């Protein structure tokens, strides 16, 4: 691998970004894995051939191979969850997980107060839940947008007096309880002393080294502006943030998809089919997100994801081992048109149409036919196929991702 790569999920999440990033990091030296959206609610599963397994939330999915993680300014960072994740990684044999981390001071901080407020809000919605992960990410974004300059940032962890003021104001504004502000400040200060905090210029330095892998979170169909409102995430899930960090440096845009389409929690899933018995080792029903749902491969929805993301250079297709043979090739309402960002009323109307749409299927797709069928339906080459959780289960299908440097 000789190029920078951006890994983005073109569905509702859960397609296998972690296992794809792990594979990329196994192809040759990687400078760092950069996270560029979301926060502690991500859950990217990596299984090593020796059976070690970790669900990556904030650490990059290259960590088990010793690849450093950089949490960019677009991240919502939760240092408390980061500590327990690091402890698990250390237990798996990663020598010094904190030593592998750099965090941009401008990243927002998700605190226990945001978490409490987010969970209270989701509970208050009752049956009309959005599908929150209960990690306070949306609440963090909302507070920072609604209170310019007052949202605590990672950089504030180095300034206990300022952080104390911001946390007191936050706790009051959200009207929640939680651990004492002083205790949070002490933990955040310890975090700032233990982990390397950097400025935004750090990304440019990373890009001058070996290839960098940008690891996206969630999926394009959950994007804050282009997803099916209100069942969306408070984050830009397209390539956009990664491209902003790249600042003109070229990179391969890699979209990840399964051979079938899934989603966690409420919201549209046009091809939903409870009859599909897919093996889901890592995707249990979440207490906050609701049930994990499965459907047939939805080419219409994924074409819409490609359109709003501005296209992709290549696809990685996972779950080639799943017993699926049908693909939704069209809806009775036609294709889904991409709209401009920022028009949530339009997106809500689109959601209404999608919820009423009927899928039309093509069948008879055999196990070996999936990569060609998906490339044909979406107009993007499939360069990586995966038929299981480890690197050994992956096969390179075309050379869009250039061969590694000699």
């Amino acid at each position, binding site marked *: 691998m000789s190029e920078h790569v951006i890994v983005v999920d073109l569905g509702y*999440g*859960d397609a296998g970004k972690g296992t794809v990033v792990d594979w990329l990091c196994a192809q040759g030296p990687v400078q760092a894995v950069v996270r560029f959206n979301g926060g*502690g*609610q*991500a*859950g*990217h*599963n990596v299984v090593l051939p020796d059976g070690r397994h970790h*669900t990556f*939330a904030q650490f990059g999915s290259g960590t088990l191979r010793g690849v450093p993680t950089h949490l960019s300014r677009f991240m919502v960072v*939760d*240092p*408390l*969850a*980061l*500590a*327990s*994740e*690091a*402890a*698990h990684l*250390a237990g798996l044999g990663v020598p*010094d*997980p*904190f*030593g592998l981390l*750099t965090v941009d001071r401008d990243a927002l901080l998700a605190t*226990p107060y945001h*978490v409490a407020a987010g969970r209270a809000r989701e509970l208050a919605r009752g049956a009309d839940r959005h599908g929150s*992960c209960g*990690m306070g990410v949306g609440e963090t974004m909302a507070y920072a947008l609604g209170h310019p300059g007052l949202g605590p940032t990672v950089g504030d962890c*180095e*300034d206990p007096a300022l952080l104390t003021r911001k946390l007191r104001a936050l706790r009051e504004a959200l009207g929640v309880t939680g*651990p004492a502000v002083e*205790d*949070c400040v*002490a*933990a955040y200060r*310890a*975090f*700032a*002393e*233990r*982990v*390397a*905090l*950097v*400025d935004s*210029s*750090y990304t*440019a*330095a990373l890009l*001058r*080294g070996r290839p960098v892998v940008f690891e996206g979170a*969630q999926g394009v169909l959950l994007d804050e502006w282009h997803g099916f409102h209100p069942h969306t995430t408070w984050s830009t899930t397209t390539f956009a943030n990664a491209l902003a960090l790249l600042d003109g440096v070229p990179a391969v845009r890699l979209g990840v998809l399964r051979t079938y389409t899934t989603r966690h929690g409420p919201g549209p899933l046009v091809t939903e089919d409870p009859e599909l018995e897919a093996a889901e080792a*890592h*995707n249990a029903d*979440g207490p*906050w*997100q609701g049930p994990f749902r499965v459907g047939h491969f939805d080419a219409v929805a994924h074409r819409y994801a490609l359109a709003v993301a501005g296209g992709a250079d290549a696809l990685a297709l996972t779950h080639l081992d799943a017993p699926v043979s049908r693909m939704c090739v069209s809806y009775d309402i036609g294709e889904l048109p991409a709209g401009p960002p920022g028009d949530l009323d339009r997106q809500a109307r689109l959601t209404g149409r999608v919820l009423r749409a009927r899928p039309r299927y093509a069948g008879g797709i055999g196990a070996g036919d999936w990569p060609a069928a998906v490339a044909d339906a979406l107009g993007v080459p499939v360069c990586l196929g995966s038929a299981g959780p480890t690197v050994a289960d992956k096969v390179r299908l075309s050379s869009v991702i250039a061969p590694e440097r000699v």
Partner: protein
Amino acid sequence: MGSGIWSTDVYAAAASYRAASGASAFAYSDSGARTVHDDLNPYGVAARESRDSDEHPATVAVAVLFDVTGSMGGVPRTLQTKLPDLLGLLLRKGYAADPQILFGAIGDATCDRAPLQIGQFESDNRMDEDLGKILLEGGGGGQRTESYELAMYFMARHTSLDCFEKRGRRGYLFIIGDELPYPKVKRREVGKVIGDSLGRDITTEEIVAELTRIYDVYYILPAGSGYAGDSHTLAAWRKLLGQNVLELDDLDAVCETIALTVGLGEDAIDLDQGLGDLGDLGSAAGAAVGRALARLERGAPVVGGELDLRGGSGVIRL
């Protein structure tokens, strides 16, 4: 798979970050130490000496002092993991025959517990032990000034270099930081931290003039620190040190930057050769070093530093 599987317990997190796990090389700091280690305490020190010996007949003194206050963030820790490579880099390429390296740390005398920590000049890896004893202050005054002038005072008046005294060759002093010196060396602080009795405060310009007779002084502003790229900071240091103010956008290249600067100063190489050497060593630092040192590149060969007893301020032999 969106999830929240990792615990967000605030007390467990604090304990976990405080645990001196992993490979933290600031062992002394991480053991909970709160005072300057005896070996690094400048109080009452007559002189830190760089001396020739049978084994090392032509020593070149190289001092590296870095800011360890809060604004520097993770920079001190990164330096701590990188700096042990410096000696090997100097020796492998023959940039200096017998380099002797001293490490030290700069805090803020107005509010820190460790305003100044100074190790010894060493010809072997013993200087790494000094690195490990450095207390990471993480405080600082938050007013964009640290006690650089106090460190410069110590280096000017409490070091003794054979390379200078016997051969008329200045040593090298690198200050890595992101803030401004105070305008004066205060007699009260000198008394408290170093133990000298001064009749008056000394302006920072005066101490720089004294210091640059003995050392080629370079200031390195690393990316990733509090005021990286801050033009105010850069301008103030350039006023003191002229072109010897370097911006380093890749902290991983700090040793290469120092080594090449010494190589250029010792007339061992020109910049292109030095960058070629880095490539030979398999170092990826070439681009960052090249940018940092671009201001120092010049066509003419280095003029050896004759003894300049008139003490002109900011002597630059480039």
